[in-house]
């Protein structure tokens, strides 16, 4: 993973659109030249949501960023995301970002593997887009619990060389978990590099499998965040270098550096 840009903005930005695109999953678009022009895949934005007794900001990965706008993809899991889902065009949100480091796309690679579980697809879409621009071929393995959770299928098909979709209940694609088929898929694709995002348990398994195949993997981690700026040390995860902050040393980590509990 790479250091993100050092430019960090704290702005009030306007919602352009906000739509449900899968069950309890929303895509929200904001206007901000400043942020859109420097955001990198893997980085996130920290939103201040003035709702009920919410105190801390809420972090979301960039799902897209182009010229003057950026998009987030989010799933409703609590009151912050519930509130976010109700924001309407023209409403404003106080944002802090881009924050964190970003996925690395070393120059010498030509095909990458993206492994997404559920809403973990968010940072990987942005990565696939940037990879494509660089002429790097992406192969996507994307699992959700059910067909109604799958987002932007056509978009992913266009961005990737191959998109392999699974559901846990078999309602779309193969009935399997990402980790069930990863070994085979990774073997076939034989990527130079892999990137994964999803639930913690999945990531742990994904890293194990890819390491056993000798494929370098970067993962985007989640933790409850405070400041988002590397100050409070509230968001650490255990790594081979000791505790590292998810917000600043991460959210992207080398798979092999994480010490899973």
């Amino acid at each position, binding site marked *: 993973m790479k250091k993100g840009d050092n430019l*960090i903005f*704290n702005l009030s930005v306007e919602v352009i659109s906000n739509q449900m695109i899968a069950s309890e999953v929303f895509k929200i678009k904001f206007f901000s030249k400043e942020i859109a022009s420097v955001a990198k895949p893997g980085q996130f934005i920290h939103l*201040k949501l003035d709702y009920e*007794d*919410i*105190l*801390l*900001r809420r972090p979301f990965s960039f799902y897209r960023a182009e010229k003057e706008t950026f998009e987030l993809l989010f799933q409703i899991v609590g009151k912050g995301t519930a509130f976010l889902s109700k924001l309407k065009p023209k409403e404003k949100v*106080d944002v*802090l970002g881009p924050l964190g480091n970003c996925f690395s796309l070393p120059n010498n690679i030509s095909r990458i593997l993206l492994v997404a579980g559920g809403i973990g697809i968010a940072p990987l879409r942005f990565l696939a887009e940037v990879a494509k621009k660089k002429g790097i071929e992406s192969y996507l393995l994307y699992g959700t619990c059910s067909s109604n959770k799958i987002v932007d299928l056509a978009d992913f098909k266009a961005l990737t060389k191959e998109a392999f979709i699974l559901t846990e209940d078999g309602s779309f694609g193969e009935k399997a978990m990402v980790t069930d088929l990863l070994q085979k898929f990774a073997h076939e694709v034989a990527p130079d590099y892999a990137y994964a995002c999803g639930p913690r348990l999945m990531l742990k398994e994904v890293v194990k499998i890819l390491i056993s195949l000798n494929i370098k993997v970067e993962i985007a981690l989640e*933790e*409850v*965040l*405070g*400041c988002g*700026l*590397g*100050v*409070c*040390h*509230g*968001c*650490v*995860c*255990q790594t081979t270098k*000791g*505790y590292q902050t998810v917000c600043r040393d991460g959210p992207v980590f080398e798979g092999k550096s994480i010490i899973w*509990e």
Partner: protein
Amino acid sequence: MEPDLSVEISGIKMKNPVMTASGTFGPKEYLPFVELNRLGALVVKTVTLKSRPGNPPPRLRETPCGVLNSIGLQNPGVKVFIKEDLPWLSQFDVPIIVSVGGETVEEYLKIIEFLNETKEISAVELNISCPNVKKGGIFFGVDPDEAANLTVKAKKISRFPLWVKLSPNVTDISLIAKVVEESGADAVSLINTIVGMAVDVKTFKPYLGGITGGLSGPAIKPIAVRMVWEVAKRVKIPVIGMGGIMNAHDALEFFLVGAKAVAVGTANLVNPKAVLEIISGIKKYMKEKGFKRMGEIVGKIII
């Protein structure tokens, strides 16, 4: 005429009475948002003798109008602090207060000895109130005898004014404040966080890796205001108030009950510009009300 916000605490002249609370503000990281020279003072994250890795994650949990933290004084140790952070900090025209924490009296004293060798700092704040470490920390803050013993010894050797940061997890905080004053403290700051806990009813596990954590934020403000009031009535040394200050009005509550200065903690995590907004808010309030000096507000509660 602009109101004069300056205050003097233990001989330290501050441009205004608003500082950052220990552990909640990163001078380097906040530089894009905050002109450091505008702060009343900068209280740095508690340093310990040796580096500390801190507590196992998760370390944060939001609670109603509050935050539980179990950071556990993660820091690189006083030597690294002096070598790497202090020189950078000293370029700014703002008093640097160094918060120190230890597991034993000896550790506290050793850190002060290291700090005595430096020139860039304005005061030492004894953190005898961190609830997130197994040994030391809060232990010194809840027992009047221990608090006295540590303060006397620290005062004896410290080249700098000595502030003591008190724990709210006690029956009578004004008693500890009194004892600490009599032991030579030049100022007291309060409150540190209140020990709290939250449990995930889905997993049956505590939300924090450290099981319990320290509660901060607006939730604790009424408790903090009350404690500052009790302490300010009882001691003559300056009282630095904190706990849930999110805006200028919150800060003013603390001044009215007797705080000569305030510190802002959790608010920094939410809004990097919080301290600056609070300073301008106080100025605006004073202008509107026609106050010229902080002395016209501090302790002026009408009972």
